[in-house]
């Protein structure tokens, strides 16, 4: 992609996304140095809010943004012409159709191509945003995707707090701090079951470190 084509995306992040993420919200970031700046890599994050994608992308410097490709729900991000344009041009999503109207193979191919191009995929292995910021069962697609391109590292990332800033079905952002905890990269050069266990364990231990999560049992 040429420099000129990257400019609108960089301006969008510089003028809108970064101010919202760093000034309106606030981030507690753990182990930022573990964030891969080069692909092929997959960021495997838990999903609480539509802000997740933007917050994770905002962690990257403007010059590296073009490498980050979120795999995001088509029914939300492509719901009208404006959001479609925004999502495809300014955010650069790979649309994933959760209702299964788009061929799964096609999404998989796009993801593989991105990895082959040395890009960084942003994936939410829970499949959908969970209820009340609880970790949902992880899907195995991420393992097969990571296997599809040799040398792909999978970086687990736990986030907490954005579900309060913009919960499911919410339409306005309320300022809250959020935690972003980055784990050590995992390799998919192993069997599926142990890999998924490692990913699950990593996300759980990262979540336990989140400052804003200590309230989890209050409503019991």
């Amino acid at each position: 992609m040429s420099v000129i084509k990257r400019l609108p995306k960089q301006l969008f992040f510089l003028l809108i996304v970064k101010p919202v993420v760093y000034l309106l919200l606030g981030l507690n970031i753990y182990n930022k140095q573990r964030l891969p700046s080069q692909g092929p890599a997959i960021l495997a994050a838990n999903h609480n809010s539509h802000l997740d994608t933007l917050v994770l992308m905002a962690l990257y410097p403007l010059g590296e943004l073009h490498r980050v490709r979120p795999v995001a729900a088509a029914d939300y991000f492509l719901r009208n012409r404006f959001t479609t344009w925004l999502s495809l041009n300014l955010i650069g999503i790979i649309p994933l159709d959760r209702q299964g109207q788009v061929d799964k193979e096609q999404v998989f191919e796009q993801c593989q191509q991105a990895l082959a191009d040395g890009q960084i995929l942003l994936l939410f292995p829970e499949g959908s945003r969970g209820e009340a910021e609880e970790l949902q069962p992880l899907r195995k697609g991420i393992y097969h995707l990571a296997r599809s391109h040799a040398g792909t590292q999978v970086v687990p990332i736990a986030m907490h707090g954005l579900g309060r800033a913009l919960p499911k079905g919410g339409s306005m952002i309320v300022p809250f701090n959020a935690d972003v905890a980055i784990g050590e990269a995992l390799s998919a050069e192993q069997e599926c079951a142990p890999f998924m266990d490692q990913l699950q364990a990593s996300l759980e231990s990262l979540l336990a470190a989140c400052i804003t999560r200590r309230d989890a049992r209050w409503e019991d």
Partner: protein
Amino acid sequence: MDIGLPFMLDLTPNTLCAMLVVVAMLILASITQLLLRSRLSEDGYLELKQRINSWWVMVGVVFTALMIGPTASLIFFTILSFIALREFFSILPVRVTDRRLILALYLAVPLQYYWVGMGWYGMFIVFIPVYLFLLIPFGLLMLGETKGFIRAVGSYQWATMTTVFAISHVAYLLMLPAEENPAGGGVGLVIYLVFLTQFNDVAQYIWGKKFGNRKIVPAISPNKTWAGFLGGVATTTLFGALLAPWLTPLPWWLGLGAGLLIGLAGFIGDLTVSAVKRDLRIKDTSQLIPGHGGILDRIDSLMYTAPLFFHFLVYTTY
């Protein structure tokens, strides 16, 4: 003093001098840090470096705002209260149904500082303790969730009182009639309060490290000792008396009282936030300030010293 620049109009020579002394102390800290490099472990050195760098940034931001003028200072304190309130709400067990009320409470921050900026003392002093006190439960009532109602009312009111109402007293010092305090002006009062509060934290820490033995409140903070507490309060009281004639309208014997008040209140404020963190089982309230933790970790003492010093000053002088 008008030294011919478009800013710094509110700074008296004493105040400017006090600021330079603070900068000199920071330079001294940075030099000490470099000298200690070989004697500290890698991690210990990095932490010390982070802490001192953060002090530079904090002092830089506060001094810049104070030097530009009252409007810039009010904007600075508005942002400070906003970040502190957001931090408090972020660690509190907030119910998702309460988001609208939380949003409304954020709007109370600029309003409170607007009253300060207008110099409307009556509104400044009742807005949060009276009006919000009555409105918060009403707002929660309208949201219709009764489970956890009492806890929500109490914790939101407390968060707003500590981070907005208490901290706005620092800003109101700038609105007190400057002619009453020719030595230091409004900025001098702010520096006196904030410097002594932070100095008290450091003094208690150093006395505790050097001579600390018997723990004072082991259940809340294992690091607080009788020696740290008494030594710190005594040092702060002494400096309160020394600095009072220089920066405030208080004579030295009232400065003793102000110093004692700041020493005691700072200790209690520090412990209060420690108890909050114990309850929530967290170590820091956020990671905003490298080496220090969150904003609440830094201004915990100020939440207690600011209103007490303000009213002591108003009662004795204004």
